[in-house]
């Protein structure tokens, strides 16, 4: 166990060196001098992640040693890119720098990570409140549709604004629903696997066991139809089908799921103009260059200009891509760090996903297995949907790149996600009783 934490420590140091190094290079490239805040930045970042590391040593010594350094590296590089885009956009009028906010979100994200590790000493406690999770997930999903709270931005209604704070509750809903699905399926998997009814070519289990799952499916359709958010809908539904398959081992669920997905996609295509534009833009981005395809085309130009080695930090023009800091941050990395850089990033994601699946394999109980699979596949699907969209592998749907994109909700949710995975992987050592320490609000002001 000690060796696991030591591996984590060395990897964390590597991640910190890369992040702080990138930060210094961007400053050098922009102003020809080492940014004055470098030391403070490095110290804060090191304090945060080493702090989280110490909490793991203390409360979850057997936890997976790859996830936290992976998150730290992606988060650190993302932060540098967001700051680098700030430099480029600074000349614009009324431009609000995003890096300070993202730094704050990073602090809060690590605080969430620590809080989850401290509060949830055994993942099985989550199992007890399964219907509360369902309720929470559904409520969070529906918030953006509410008239006063909800905000429609760029054609999708997935924002909630309360006073000065805004966020995408779907990010949190994702985790709540995965917890519910895992809990539900862990208990009912035998019943669901035993088919009693025949409906056409499909053998179906008793309807009453199936109802909550239909509810989850309805929720994903809800997201699609009322919030016009293709990405999240695909994410929910994909995770739902994968969990159903893992729990029951029945391919018929996958086939039925694909059938439902295709049906939903065809309906959405015929019903919504913006879905048709997305598909048309995907098929021929150059025909739509002047309007709907502009962003995608700019992203492709950025990646093409980056080539194999990239232009180098602050040497490209990723600010030409609309929404470079959120949906298109992958293309920004492609331009400045090149094929080598983005391949390395994708391999980090792949490594984290495989660690997550390993955690699922090793988890002692069905709930833990399903929870780990659900969390990690939602993470992997999110990477696939946005990277695939930006690289024109699939039609583009706006969604954040985990840990890298600018955006608080996404960062907090993903830290909670890896914290849960760390917790599941720590099974075997009973967590010592301890009072959960609240996140220190003093840390926040340090970074700002």
């Amino acid at each position, binding site marked *: 166990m000690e060796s696991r934490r030591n591996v984590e420590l060395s990897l964390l140091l590597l991640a910190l060196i890369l992040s702080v190094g990138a930060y210094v290079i961007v400053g050098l490239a922009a102003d020809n001098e080492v940014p004055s805040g470098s030391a403070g930045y490095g110290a804060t970042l090191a304090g945060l992640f080493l702090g989280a590391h110490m909490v793991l040593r203390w409360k979850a010594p057997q936890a997976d040693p790859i996830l936290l350094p992976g998150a730290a590296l992606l988060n650190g590089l993302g932060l540098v890119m967001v700051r680098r885009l700030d430099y480029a956009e*600074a*000349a614009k009028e009324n431009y609000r720098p995003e890096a300070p906010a993202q730094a704050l979100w990073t602090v809060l994200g690590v605080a969430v990570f620590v809080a989850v590790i401290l509060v949830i000493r055994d993942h099985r406690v989550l199992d007890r409140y399964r219907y509360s999770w369902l309720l929470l997930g559904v409520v969070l999903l529906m918030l953006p549709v509410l008239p006063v709270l909800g905000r429609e931005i760029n054609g999708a209604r997935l924002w909630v604004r309360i006073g000065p704070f805004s966020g995408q509750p779907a990010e949190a809903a994702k985790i709540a629903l995965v917890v519910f699905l895992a809990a539900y399926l862990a208990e009912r998997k035998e019943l669901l696997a035993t088919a009693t009814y025949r409906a056409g070519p499909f053998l179906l289990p008793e309807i009453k066991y199936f109802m909550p799952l239909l509810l989850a499916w309805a929720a994903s359709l809800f997201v699609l139809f009322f919030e016009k958010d293709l990405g999240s809908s695909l994410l929910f539904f994909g995770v739902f089908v*994968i969990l159903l*398959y*893992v*729990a029951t*081992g029945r391919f018929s669920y996958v086939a039925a799921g694909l059938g439902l997905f295709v049906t939903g996609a065809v309906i959405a295509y015929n019903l919504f103009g913006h879905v048709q534009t997305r598909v048309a833009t995907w098929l021929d981005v150059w025909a739509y*260059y002047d309007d709907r395809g502009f962003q995608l*085309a700019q992203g*492709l*130009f*950025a*990646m*093409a*200009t*980056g*080539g*194999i080695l990239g232009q180098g930090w602050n040497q*490209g*023009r990723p600010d*030409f891509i609309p929404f470079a800091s959120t949906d298109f941050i992958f293309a920004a990395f*492609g331009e400045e760090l*090149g*094929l080598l850089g*983005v*391949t390395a990033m*994708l*391999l980090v*994601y*792949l490594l984290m*996903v*495989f660690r997550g*699946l390993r955690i*699922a*394999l090793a988890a002692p109980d*069905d709930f833990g*297995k*399903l929870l780990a*699979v659900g969390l990690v*596949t939602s993470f*992997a699907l999110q*990477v*696939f949907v946005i*990277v*695939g969209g930006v*690289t*024109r*592998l699939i039609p583009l749907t706006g969604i954040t790149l985990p840990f890298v994109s600018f955006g608080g909700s996404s960062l907090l949710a993903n830290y909670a996600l890896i914290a849960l995975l760390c917790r599941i992987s720590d099974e075997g050592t009973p967590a010592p009783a301890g009072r959960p320490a609240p996140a220190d609000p003093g840390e926040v002001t340090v970074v700002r």
Partner: protein
Amino acid sequence: MNRQIRRVAVVVLVAFMALLAAPLYWQVLAADRLANDSRNTRVLIKEYSIERGPIVLANNFEVARSVRSTRRGDPLEFVREYPQGPRYGMVTGFYSLVFGRTLAEQEFNSFLLGRAPEQFGQNVTDLLTARETPGGTLVLTLDRATQAAAEGALGGRKGAVVALDPRTGAVLAMTTFPRYNPNQLSSHNPEEIRRNWERLINDEDGPLLNRAAGALYPPGSTFKVVTAAAALENGTSMSDELPSPDVYDVPQTSADIRNFGGSSCGGGGTLTLTEALRISCNTTFAALGVELGSEKLAAEAEKFGFNQPSPYQLPAATSSIPEEQDVPATAQSAIGQRDVRVSPLQMATVAATIANGGRRMGPFVAQRVVSDKGSVVKRFEGEDFGQVIPEQVAGDLRDMMRQVVESGTGVNARIPGLEVAGKTGTAQHAQGRNPHAWFIGFTGSGDRQIAVAVVVEEGGDVGSEITGGRTAAPIARDVMRAYMGGG
């Protein structure tokens, strides 16, 4: 359950393989094509660090130039300026951060950047002396006074004016209305550029379209010059009496051809070829066309450059006439209607070829590239197509066209002290719309020779042939007078 998880892992692996392959495609396989796409503004960033050469007229009169950007924190070193505003935009084109380059800025880009092979010797010295290579200066053939006169004479009417030097093909003036101001697209403010662009492309009048070279119109009666040339080459002489009925009963159809407004050509049933051209008699020329046949008519037009890509250095539309037509269509083609489509640049070439004694010179607007040290890097000339019509025929046509201006439909083009030749046109293009007003002509004395084509969209009057001459001829007159020094 673990078996399923392992299967999920395989699916994840396959999906990530696809994810890894996608950037490989964009950043390696498709990289060259995309990185050099003219819409990729990153390519421009590199270009903007070079002092792009100016575009000038004679006496170094600048119509496009690069100056250091004064915007604070601007990553682009030089900004393109068009000191004359919209006046030369139809030749210079624009140089835009967002929308790339057009026209001269595009076609002569490598010269302006100092990267053409001809400039290589210069670059080596610059390499040795570690000097930043400034781009070459592009010198245009346009004449400042003539260009200004053309713009002024056309005024706010939709249309185009082209003036050529008949002996060389040099474009002396080229204007179009509506115009755009290239400065609106050349700033370093992408949002402003995009706003201006939106307005320009959504403008139904098409201010970005260079009507002088890029638009096609029916030529109307100005095409009778080509029909007359075909007749002269096929044995008709200027003084031959030709039938001039009030109504020409076109064979094979019930549709007749009449004169504008149903007027009579007079002359008691016959006219000489000269007379028919002077008063622009439709029935005479329609009958002539039918007699010649569509193939001879098209062959004559092709001598002037129809049905071939324009030799002009910048993008231009191809003027056309069908090679094979039935009799009714041939009758209409002979008077410049039906499927005959011409650009003003093409009609200016028709006038210039006649003015030049039948020797056709392809139009050109960029005459040379000069290095920043003043040495000529490259010269351009109009393509010489040789004696496309016999000198005798050209001489006859000139005499006939002088009659048109002297006492025919083109009297409004008369300039005291100069012999002006010309032909008017009033081209019908759509039911219920006013016809386009045309004038082509030329004049000269000694070393100064000029041929002009003018079109004013819907500048004519339904039912009156004379209106083409009334609207377009004075514009041509002003342009010719400006070049000849008459003010």
